[in-house]
């Protein structure tokens, strides 16, 4: 197979895996920001928390990787409800700036706590045998883990798509994102809807955090470092849009990977250049509402 084609396939494969991670972790943020207009910069901290729970479960309690992912997602989702009801609720009417500051403060507290309990050195996680190693497709081998990530991502996309487009609750969420006041006047309990979406979104973030360990290693600064990426995916995709988050994740994931492959030093540049270009032309993102 010609050299450039191999590179192209590698970029697509790795880019797709990265995009799946971005999508899984960011989709919750997009929907909650679109639904409630609440700027939650602690979202990265939820992902980080999920990651550390997986680390503890697998390393200290010997629980398998996949079950740990599930437990982490459910736990963080449940705990996030406490945050939402107890704290965030008070700031729905507050200014953007206040929401930014509050959630950054929470993120800092989370990072400090993680540093205290786990230390600053990046952690890794033991993977089951079938996720280690590679899949051989002849012209190139592909890491099984990344393949798993892609498959899992596609599966979740289908589940979320179904939930969003085909169920009653999904319809209510879409209605509330579109026009909250009207949805409320039609009798939709937007508050409850938001708590539910927030829990699912945070749970997915935790899942993403757990999945990220094998890709990037997990250290406390994850909460802020990758937050920037999540925010970019959400902004470029458009608030409250599943399609938008997916498209943004794909575009940014593939281009970032391509950048890092082809221009090692300046690789990171692309993501931000694309962000600026997209937002200048479509300030509300691909599928956002003006």
């Amino acid at each position, binding site marked *: 197979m010609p050299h450039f084609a191999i590179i192209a396939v590698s970029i697509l494969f790795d880019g797709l895996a990265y995009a799946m991670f971005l999508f899984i972790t960011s989709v919750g943020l997009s929907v909650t920001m679109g639904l409630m207009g609440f700027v939650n910069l602690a979202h990265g901290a939820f992902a980080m928390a999920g990651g550390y729970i997986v680390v503890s479960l697998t390393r200290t309690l010997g629980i398998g990787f996949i079950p740990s992912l599930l437990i982490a997602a459910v736990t963080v989702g449940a705990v996030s409800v406490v945050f939402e009801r107890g704290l965030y609720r*008070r700031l729905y009417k507050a200014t*953007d*700036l206040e929401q930014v*500051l509050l959630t950054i403060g929470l993120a*800092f507290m989370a990072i400090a706590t993680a540093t205290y309990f786990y230390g600053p050195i990046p952690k890794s996680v033991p993977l089951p045998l079938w996720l280690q190693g590679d899949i051989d497709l002849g012209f190139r081998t592909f890491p099984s883990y990344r393949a798993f990530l892609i498959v899992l991502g596609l599966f979740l996309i289908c589940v979320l798509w179904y939930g969003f487009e085909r169920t009653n609750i999904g319809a209510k969420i879409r209605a509330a994102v579109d026009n909250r006041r009207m949805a409320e006047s039609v009798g939709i309990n937007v508050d409850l809807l938001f708590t539910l979406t927030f829990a699912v979104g945070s749970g997915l973030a935790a899942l993403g955090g757990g999945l990220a360990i094998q890709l990037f290693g997990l250290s406390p600064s994850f909460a802020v470092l990758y937050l920037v990426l999540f925010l970019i995916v959400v902004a*470029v995709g458009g608030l409250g849009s599943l399609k938008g988050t997916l498209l943004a994740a794909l575009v940014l994931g593939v281009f970032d990977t391509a950048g890092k492959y082809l221009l090692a030093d300046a690789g990171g540049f692309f993501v*931000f250049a694309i962000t600026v270009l997209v937002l200048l032309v479509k300030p509300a993102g691909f599928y956002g509402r003006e």
Partner: protein
Amino acid sequence: MAASETTSVTTSAERAQARERAAEYLLSRHRFRWPEALPWLLAIAAYFLFPDRMTFGGQVLIMVLFALSLDLILGYAGIVTLGHAAFFGIGAYTVGLLIARLGWSEPLSSLVAAALVSALIGMISGWFLLRYRGLTLLMLTLATAIMLQETGNLRSDLSGGYDGLPGLVISPLFGVFDYDLYGHTNYLYVLGVLAAVLFFVRRIVYSPFGQALTGIRENVRRMHAIGSPVHRRLVTVYTISAAIAGIAGGLFTQTNAYVTLTVFDFDVSAKVMVMLILGGTGRLYGAFVGAVVYMVLEDHLSKMSPTFWQFGIGLLLVLAVLFARRGVLGLFEDAGQYFSRKRKQL
């Protein structure tokens, strides 16, 4: 007869008096009041009381200047951005490159150059970006700062990359005042620059232009409706703010004799915002209070344990948003109003 209607039967003398009072009120608010001398007295006192902490003192004053630049756009015009470090970094690197690549080490002219370059970038980026608000603007400004950093990384031959440009020694001030090892001259130098900048910022903020900024912050819809050229005003204040941030960055390089790409970090943008919020936005001296409190606390606490410091700052932010939204100066104001009300009751 409506009870809410106040009597409108007044003599012309009374009317003239009411007008005088109104005019006097507006003028009086902009006069120099004695508490304004306080920060300067304290700064000079610090010079004599803490002669061995003058390097740190210089850093604090630089942060005050940086926070002051942010107050112009955040506190007065109400624009929230996440990339103000971009201008700090541009100023820092302007001075750094002048010394490292062009051998130009005269301090004051370097600062002017830093201000001009930052202002230019501020004007251009502001013209494009200030058409947006909210998350879009946050992301655009953040991305701009990161892209500048990445560009510096790309040309690490010029910028020194993350290792930076060391050994950037500046010439004596006015060709006369040499720099001592303990930062004494530097402290007074930075204090002088800060005083000069504050003089100008104070005039701007109390001018009709400053009033228009407040109007844009309070109700931009109304401003459009009365014919205010909102975008032009915002780009203007953004340019000025960038220039001042550039000066702060230039002073940073001059004080440290060193500059690295970390001056563009998101951390820097976040830090200066926290400082300003803690002190209180839109109050001119909030930058002073916030920067001093933050830097002093950080100096003490992060030496004990960086983790506790980070936790503490996070907690402080959360508490500030929940209970003290207008910062320390806001708390003082509230306390002042509380006590004056109590006095009236007695």
